[in-house]
């Protein structure tokens, strides 16, 4: 016996809602983690120069030089001696100055005396090449 109910052919429906949820969550996650990774570098008023495009190596240290001369290593404030000690360790681990990329993010208003002192100390450690971070656009 066939009832009326049996005659209604249900169209197969694919529920997209959970898939869209998951996809959007993943997109937001990856976008935000990328943003957070950059925001770990504290805000510094960098010199406004065109510079080169920033390359990325496996071994890279970022030194923040604040306007008052305070230093941060990979965004962590630390005394000068400790910072130099850690860079020395990084140098040894990287197998030499050529394999370690040192980027100095210096406040553009900081007296060059601080940069000179840091450059001198880096040279004493054996760091022969370093890069001065800039932000695009000439002042």
């Amino acid at each position: 016996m066939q009832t009326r109910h049996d005659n209604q052919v249900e169209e197969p429906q694919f529920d997209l809602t959970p898939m869209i949820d998951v996809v959007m969550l993943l997109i937001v996650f990856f976008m935000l983690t990328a943003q957070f990774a950059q925001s770990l570098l504290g805000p510094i008023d960098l010199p406004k120069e065109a510079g080169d495009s920033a390359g990325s190596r496996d071994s890279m240290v970022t030194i923040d030089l604040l306007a008052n001369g305070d230093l941060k290593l990979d965004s962590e404030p630390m005394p000068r001696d400790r910072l130099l000690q850690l860079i020395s360790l990084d140098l040894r681990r990287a197998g030499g100055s050529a394999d370690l990329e040192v980027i100095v993010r210096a406040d553009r208003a900081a007296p060059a005396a601080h940069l000179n002192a840091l450059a001198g100390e880096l040279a004493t450690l054996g760091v022969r090449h370093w890069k001065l971070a800039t932000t695009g656009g000439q002042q």
Partner: protein
Amino acid sequence: MNFRPRRLRVTRIPRLPLVALIDVVLFLLMYFMLATDFSGEASALASTLKAESRPGGSMSASASLVSQIVSVEPGSQPGTEWVYRLGDRRIQSRTELVQVLKSLPKESGLVVKVAPTVPVAAAAAALQAAKDAGFSKVSYVPSRS
């Protein structure tokens, strides 16, 4: 006579999947709210300048290199924060410095020496001028005087 009941046409009410729409809108809203906060930092490391440190600040370069030293010194005139010096020549603007540097031989590189009292921006400007002039080897000499 046909006694079979007519097949009733099932009228479906069109439904708009609002749940998915709301999800998408909320996630986009969340993304833009959070991304706006950090967008200023996105280009912080977009560009860098190369420099090479020489220990001690002593000018042990050969005599032929003397003319290839750019010193950045505090400006003596009001409104001029810093000036560049190449040998005996004082250069006020960066454009002029680039023009002068372009006429120098590039093989031996360029030494940039920055006075302690000028801001870091001056050091960056000198390094950028060297790069703009075509120098690939730029040495930064820590100056203590």
